[in-house]
């Protein structure tokens, strides 16, 4: 008989995740399958190495930043709930959600939360501001060795100049939202599910 980690997901847990993230029952079980197949240590959590084992992610220039988004400050392991919470940002926004009860807390896949995910990719030290230095570092990750420091510097300067409104030479989340107000965030930061 095989030595499969037989920690099948309990129904109550699936319901909780459904409420929190908005994923459907079948989507949750499929993603749980995926989670367990990535979990080589079979201990119910994923480490950074587990993510880095995915070749397509390893060759993504921002792979490390994306992996980092799954781990809360100072932690090295992420469990299934945390995994789903982060993935939920990429759920497409459905029409009936737009007219939902305004007192309910904002869903994880709202436009603002999608923008927040992207903002946090830039904000390396998590201080809610993108400094020139941070922007430069992320740009460097995206372009590798192909652009000189000066050119990259001028790109960063130009970007901050256009976005910064309160003159503190860095981009806050609200300024970030303003710059991207016309971009179709709903579509570009969503992943279409087949079920």
């Amino acid at each position, binding site marked *: *008989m*095989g030595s*499969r980690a037989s920690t*099948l997901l309990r129904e109550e847990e699936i319901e909780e995740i459904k409420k929190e993230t908005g994923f459907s029952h079948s*989507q949750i*079980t*499929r*993603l749980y*399958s*995926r989670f367990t*197949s*990535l979990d080589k240590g079979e201990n119910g959590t994923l480490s950074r190495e587990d*993510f*880095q*084992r*995915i*070749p*397509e*992610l*390893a*060759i*993504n*220039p*921002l*792979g490390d930043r*994306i992996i980092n988004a799954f781990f809360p400050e100072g932690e090295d392991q992420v469990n299934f709930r945390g995994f789903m919470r982060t*993935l939920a940002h*990429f759920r497409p926004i459905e029409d009936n959600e737009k007219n939902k009860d305004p007192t309910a807390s904002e869903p994880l896949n709202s436009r603002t939360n999608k923008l927040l*995910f*992207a903002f946090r*990719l*830039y904000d390396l030290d998590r201080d809610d501001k993108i400094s020139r230095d941070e922007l430069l570092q*992320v*740009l460097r990750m*995206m*372009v*590798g*060795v*192909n*652009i000189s420091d000066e*050119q990259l510097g001028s*790109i960063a300067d*130009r*970007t901050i100049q256009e976005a910064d409104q309160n003159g503190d030479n860095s*981009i806050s989340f609200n300024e*970030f939202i303003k*710059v*991207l*107000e*016309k*971009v*179709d*965030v709903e579509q*570009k*930061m969503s*992943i*279409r*599910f*087949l*079920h």
Partner: protein
Amino acid sequence: MKKKVQSHNLWATLRIERGAKEKNHLLYKPYSNAIIAKEPTSLEEEIKEIRRSGSNRDLDSASEFEMSDIFYFARRGVESIMDDEVTKRFSAEELESWNLLTRSNYNFHYISLRLTVLWGLGVLIRYGFLLPLRVTLAFTGVGLLVFLTSIIGLLPNGRMKNFLSEKVHLMCYRICVRALTAIITYHDRENKPKNGGICVANHTSPIDVIILASDGCYAMVGQIHGGLMGVIQRSMVKACPHIWFERSEVKDRHLVAKRLSDHVEDKSKLPILIFPEGTCINNTSVMMFKKGSFEIGSTVYPVAIKYDPRFGDAFWNSSKFGMVNYLLRMMSSWAIVCSVWYLPPMCREEGEDAVQFANRVKAAIARQGGLVDLLWDGGLKRGKVKDTFKEEQQKLYSKMLVGTQEDRSRS
């Protein structure tokens, strides 16, 4: 006594065979378990689209960098976390419905008493009846192989020796096929590999060798092992020239290439059998072919092998199971059902280098077997991906930023 054992096995085989052939037309419907839909757009296309949708300025002065560019990388990254093309190739394929083997039981929980009873019955039959039968046959087959090839080795080289060697090899491999209850359908036999050629096939398990060698004679290539495997290898080579390498010689690419090309030049020697992926893949895809065998310059005979996962999963996950464990699992499955297609021979064309040739052959095999054709290296099973791929992505993106500057300076 042996006759009785053989006839029982024959009955069991026929029963399973009939079942398999009835479902033949549905045999290889690929089970698509994809979670998400991936758009096959390029980096450039997508980033341009993102920028266009959020553009505040007129489209003539195309911008160099937009903060929204990051959306592309973020989405691609998370897509690959949800579902990627590579990591799933190194574990057994998921089945659409349960085939009463516990080992294929991933997502199916306890459903009903009847199913459990059926499963219990299955266990009794498989372990109590089929397994002992098959193990006996396996020992017979291997024992005969070692014994007879050693005897033939005493004969002087010549036509008689080759003839006998052929007969002995075929007979012993066919006994082994019975020992696994492998039901094999060979297609296009007219394309069978000939002397002086190299036969390449996709690799799923060590059983591939037995399947191919029971229908034709090949010169095997591989590293000399110790133990039982080594004994078998050493006696096989007495009867006909196989190419075994010492562990130290394997690293020397020139030596390997030289021995292979010497072998194919001698037309009296059998075609070489090689698995260019270099490792076992789970039979849903074909991964990168190592170019070594395609540099030699002889005719290549591609062969596609596709197993039907419903009767028994043939994939050898070497990081999970050892060889003996694996063989026992094989022999206690219902059966191994597979199809072998002999594809028309291919030669390297003018102006085509070894890598392109290898990819062409790989595409042909993937198409025939209904497998996904991947460029990824099977070595990723154990090793890390090379940095050059990431650097390619970075270069592509840099072009988008820097390229527009050049346009601007022109206007």
